[in-house]
């Protein structure tokens, strides 16, 4: 082996002198350096020499086996394609329910729910802070009555339901369980995911209610409750999507996400739960950006890093605890408002990267992503894009098809190293939560976002039709999602009806019990489920707990 490597290195030097140099003297390269979106400098050409430190069996291996670089399962898409899970949410529960049914009729295989800003932030629709935002960017869910209508007619034992919600996630989980109970479904058969990743909220998405430490307790309670009662449910979806959309590098996306994963595992283990009792149900969420190779490498690196963390740091024994499963969404920020149909091409490339990277489920953005929440035609093309990849491209026949590419394996190993460097730094600074409280992660992200912005403005990375090939004639018109201005009033009426029909004394009693439990170390889920069953609203539960948990106030850094 040693002789071959030396030969390649020698040959490369010779090639540089005899072939490359005379060529570039006549015709120089377009740029001095080519960098990935994440800022890593790409070699002109990669050879076996560049991956001499990569050991196939140790670092790459086989799908469904440690370190899971090639995929979490031994058959991957040969058994069934990824779950095609287009997110939807707008207006009232009834409005969104119709979109769900439309998408299922078009062949979608999972449901993903987008909530409006008040629901995400823990305000009821009739709160002063909610004005202008009810049902605008997602669906408004105030009480379990809304959730019953949201998933009406959908078999919750058959289709997996994902909910993108964070600071109030445990309440929405309670609503979901009461919905299932009132419709007669078996909890043990419920499959689905609640995002419930509060750490990345402080870093990137910025939806919060309480300070980090009490918020971590709520995440812990939902994980431990699920471990006991919901064998098929993913109680947390640790997310890198938002950090990347906020401008992080690819390495930061994986490193911050897995650092959050580490923090959740530590929190639950601290409560006396065995790591193998809950780790198999942890799930992850990454973006698929436009930088194809770097993205495929990123997904592979994420699986390898997590496997090693779980085995070496936490001593996990079960293979399921070490295998990282993830949902993926194409990059909203890569979409442009100008010539929006071009976003179909961008999204298709990003979706292909997700598939080459072994995603378990995927949302493809609509071409109107930069303009508004998606219209029905935009969502249909986005779903068709996935179906074309699954049915026509032929890529599902072989697992991890790009493995062994010198470039890809080098990038994969570099991202892995970047992650472990970040973990060392975060540990040195006192852990993930401390790093949020000290604004370390926020500042790292802001620096990366500004750097990427400057590189774009300097012309290092172009955006077609925005910074290059710009057509100054009128932007092509596309039909956008119509905002139903009356939806907000309909929601206020729905909420008023729920409040009028409930037993106020029972609600108050249930809320008092939630507050009592919050002050102890008991699991908060059972009391929350009881409150939701009595028709307490999300906003009421959030508000009742503010005096116990406090309210988070950010010190903004830029």
């Amino acid at each position: 082996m040693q002789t071959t490597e030396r030969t390649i290195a020698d040959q490369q030097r010779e090639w540089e002198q005899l072939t490359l140099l005379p060529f570039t003297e006549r015709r120089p390269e377009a740029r001095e350096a080519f960098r990935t979106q994440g800022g890593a400098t790409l070699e002109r050409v990669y050879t076996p020499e560049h991956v001499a430190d990569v050991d196939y069996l140790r670092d790459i291996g086989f799908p469904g086996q440690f370190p899971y670089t090639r995929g979490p399962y031994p058959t991957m898409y040969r058994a069934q394609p990824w779950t095609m899970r287009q997110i939807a949410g707008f207006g009232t529960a009834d409005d969104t329910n119709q979109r769900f049914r439309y998408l299922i009729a078009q062949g979608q295989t999972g449901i993903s729910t987008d909530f409006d800003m008040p629901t995400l932030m823990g305000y009821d629709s009739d709160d002063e802070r909610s004005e202008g935002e009810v049902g605008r960017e997602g669906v408004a869910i105030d009480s379990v009555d809304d959730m019953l209508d949201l998933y009406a007619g959908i078999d919750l034992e058959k289709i997996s339901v994902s909910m993108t919600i964070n600071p109030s996630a445990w309440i929405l989980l309670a609503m979901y369980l009461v919905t299932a109970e009132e419709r007669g479904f078996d909890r043990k058969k419920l499959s689905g995911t609640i995002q419930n990743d509060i750490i990345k909220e402080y870093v990137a998405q910025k939806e919060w209610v309480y300070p980090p430490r009490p918020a971590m307790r709520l995440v812990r309670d939902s994980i431990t409750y699920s471990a006991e009662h919901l064998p098929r449910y993913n109680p947390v979806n640790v997310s890198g999507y938002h950090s990347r959309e906020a401008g992080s590098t690819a390495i930061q996306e994986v490193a911050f996400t897995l650092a959050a994963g580490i923090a959740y595992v530590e929190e639950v283990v601290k409560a006396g739960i065995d790591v193998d009792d809950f780790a198999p149900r942890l799930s992850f969420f990454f973006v698929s950006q436009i930088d194809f190779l770097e993205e495929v490498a990123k997904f592979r690196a994420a699986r390898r890093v997590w496997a090693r963390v779980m085995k070496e740091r936490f001593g996990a024994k079960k293979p399921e605890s070490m295998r990282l499963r993830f949902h993926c969404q194409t990059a909203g920020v890569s979409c442009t408002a100008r010539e929006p149909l071009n976003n179909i091409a961008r999204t298709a490339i990003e979706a292909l990267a997700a598939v080459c990277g072994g995603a378990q489920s995927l949302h493809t953005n609509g071409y109107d992503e930069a303009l508004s929440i998606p219209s029905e035609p935009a969502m249909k093309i986005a779903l068709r894009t996935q179906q074309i990849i699954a049915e026509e491209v032929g890529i599902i026949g072989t697992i991890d098809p790009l493995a062994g590419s010198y470039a890809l394996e080098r990038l994969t190993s570099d991202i892995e190293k970047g992650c472990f460097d970040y973990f060392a730094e975060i540990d040195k600074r006192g852990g993930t939560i401390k790093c949020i409280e000290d604004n370390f992660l926020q500042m790292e992200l802001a620096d990366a976002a500004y750097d990427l912005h400057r590189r774009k403005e300097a012309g290092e990375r172009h955006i077609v039709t925005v910074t290059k090939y710009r057509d100054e004639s009128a932007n092509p018109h596309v039909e956008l999602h119509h905002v139903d201005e009356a939806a907000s009033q309909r929601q206020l009426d729905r909420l008023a009806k729920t409040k009028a029909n409930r037993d106020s004394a029972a609600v108050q009693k249930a809320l008092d019990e939630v507050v009592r439990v919050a002050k102890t170390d008991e699991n908060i889920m059972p009391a929350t489920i009881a409150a939701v069953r009595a028709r307490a609203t999300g906003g009421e539960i959030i508000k009742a707990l503010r005096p116990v948990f406090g309210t988070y106030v950010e010190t903004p850094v830029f």
Partner: protein
Amino acid sequence: MPIKVLVAKPGLDGHDRGAKIVARALRDAGMEVVYTGLHQTPEMIVNAAIQEDVDVVGVSILSGAHMTIFPKIMTMLAEREVDDIAVVGGGVIQEADIPKLKEIGVREIFNAEASTQDLIDGIERIVAQTGRDRSRREAAGTAGAGQAASR
């Protein structure tokens, strides 16, 4: 005296990437920048603008609530008799809404495609055209730091 800008982030959404990049770019261009942080009500924004005595308020909005938020800010500035503070906006604002916003006094909308140089030039132009009464500000001396923080 440098131009003083309040970068404001109303609404419940957390899309602050643009606001932070703008804040840093304006600071790098020599302006004095105060960033409100997230989740501000129109009232909080107007209070901060007065307390910080700024020339310009730059409102970043991506939640779709711009037709609710901007009118409130404009009305409050007028009520507090500080409507000489120029208001500009950015974020995801649909073309059709821009004339309506300009009608109520919003000076300029910088969409996601605007470069930071467009933004810097635009703010300098607006302040040069109808800047605030600088002598009043200078007489007032140092403005209070308020709740808003910068790096």
